[in-house]
């Protein structure tokens, strides 16, 4: 099969057709670190990607048949949920947390705000079975898929055996979620020395400020160090203990995964509970809103005893200007990632 594929590719004269046929995200961006979910783990393949895409947008995966993954993860806002503070599940139920953007998941060792999901393939089990999200059982999902002639045919063609099982379902879905690669923002073109990578003086200043004031948390070209931190939102965490919910360790109370800053101007509202509607509010929080608690991140405690990261109005403006350069329109508008019409 592999050899035949190579031979066919070698005979294909039109590079543009090849580009069209490629699976989104099947090439690793040169400015990104090594991925957690290697390409070889689940080699991108057009038919499987398309199957994953169908699954992602299929509301039948929920108990009520009206909530799909795509319901709370909309492409035009980097697969976050526009204007929704917290997730909206079946029967209008609200979850406790903000639906995060889905992008560059291939580079994530742990997923969800608390890191409870430890592999891209098994991550969908959380929203699928959560009573306030899709509220369905894996068993029922498989029953529905196996009762659908189109799914039967597509799965059988790829995996060569029936019935459709959890392995096939989760692997196919992961082909789509792993494909959600955002690496073509103006910033990316800039760092890769490509055309269209011009940054203005304020943007360049904002970039330097970010490196100086917002790292190591928002470091690397993924703009997250993948750690869990308490960024001073609250003094106590009885409503949501965050990382401690997973680890059962007191020192993890109030810690949440550091989110990426990519497409951040699109992914409002912000924070694990969606409490801030604008990035200006987020910067104001770091400047003068940080609350003290036993697990507050040491980086937010200054030597003079004050809390947070002081930012002048000019610095805030320049940071916002730089964050705009992380918007990847190509990703937000890639028709291959959209729901099939």
């Amino acid at each position, binding site marked *: 099969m592999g050899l035949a594929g190579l031979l066919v590719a070698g005979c294909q004269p039109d590079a543009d057709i090849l580009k069209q046929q490629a699976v989104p995200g099947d090439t690793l961006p040169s400015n990104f670190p090594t991925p957690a979910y290697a390409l070889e783990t689940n080699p991108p393949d057009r038919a499987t990607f398309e199957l994953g895409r169908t699954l992602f947008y299929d509301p039948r995966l929920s108990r009520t048949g009206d909530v799909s993954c795509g319901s709370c993860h909309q492409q035009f806002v980097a697969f976050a949920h526009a204007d929704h503070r917290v997730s909206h599940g079946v029967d209008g139920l609200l979850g406790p947390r903000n639906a995060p953007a889905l992008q560059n998941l291939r580079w994530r060792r742990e997923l969800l705000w608390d890191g409870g999901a430890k592999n891209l393939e098994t991550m969908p*089990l*959380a929203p699928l079975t959560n009573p306030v999200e899709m509220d369905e059982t894996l068993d029922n999902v498989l029953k529905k898929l196996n009762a659908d002639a189109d799914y039967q045919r597509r799965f059988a063609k790829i995996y060569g055996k029936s019935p459709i099982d959890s392995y096939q379902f989760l692997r196919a879905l992961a082909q789509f979620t792993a494909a959600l690669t955002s690496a073509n923002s103006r910033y990316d073109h800039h760092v890769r020395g490509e055309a269209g990578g011009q940054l203005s003086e304020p943007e360049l200043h904002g970039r330097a400020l970010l490196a100086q004031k917002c790292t190591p948390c928002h470091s690397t070209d993924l703009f997250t160090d993948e750690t869990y931190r308490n960024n001073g939102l609250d003094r106590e965490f009885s409503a949501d203990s965050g990382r401690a919910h997973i680890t059962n360790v007191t020192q993890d109370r109030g810690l949440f995964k550091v989110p990426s800053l990519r497409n951040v101007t699109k992914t409002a509202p912000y924070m694990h509970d969606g409490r801030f509607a604008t990035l200006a509010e987020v910067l104001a929080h770091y400047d003068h809103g940080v609350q003290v608690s036993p697990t507050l991140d040491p980086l937010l405690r200054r030597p003079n005893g004050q809390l947070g990261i002081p930012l002048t109005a000019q610095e805030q403006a320049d940071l916002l200007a730089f964050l705009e350069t992380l918007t990847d329109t190509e990703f937000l508008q890639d028709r291959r990632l959209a729901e099939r019409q």
Partner: protein
Amino acid sequence: MKFSLPTFWVAAVAILFSLAGCDDKEKDAQPAVGTLDVEMEHVVGNRALALNTTTYTNPVSNEQFTISRFNYYVSNVKLQKADGTEYAQPESYYLVQESDAESKHLHFKDIPTGDYTGISFVVGVDSARNTAGAQTGALDVNNNMFWSWNTGYIFFKMEGNLLASSSYPAKTFLMHVGGFTKPYNAVRTVKLTFPSSNLLVRADHSPELHLKADALKVLNGPQPIQLGTFMGAHMPGSNAMQVANNYAAGMFSVEHIHAN
């Protein structure tokens, strides 16, 4: 020794390649293997385990209880040889469930022939497979032994009902043990020595190893559990560790060996 025809030819060709130019050692190079059947026998003290229908007594507290579910993973099986070496079974994952008689019968194939002195296995699933993504067979995440919100396998499940007494009301109890990271790593390895004689694996006979799993030891272990006050276990944490420490300490024992 029984070989399917294709297996024979693959092996023969491989041997020809590997031994080209060497002395004729074909007979030594043929891996001599046999089979071993392991039967898991579930008991509660000196009585057989029967789901739902039989009332047992907790020796810790004299509480009366029934058991409705009794499941566990056996993985990473190793067999210790009399010569001091060890055989580690590849792809070694088994889900044993009291409700499924077939699952209590573990059939091991391709065990190198030899005299074995003991067996060890993990009760649960190693950390690598806990984070490896979608799996098939015993590790299928649709086996009702996988946590979705804090992804990882449930190594052990014992559920049941505590019967009411004059001092406490009836309640259900739930012991779901899992977790593979510090400080709540509940992965436990059990090592058992064959008591009287070695277990002989030969190409021409299939021994049967009968292991006993005593559910009472889950309660009556180094960290005794009173069902009336135990808050249950349903996530990685100290309660899961308590249950794991108990079952690791003495739930499994060698009942007997049929040499066959």
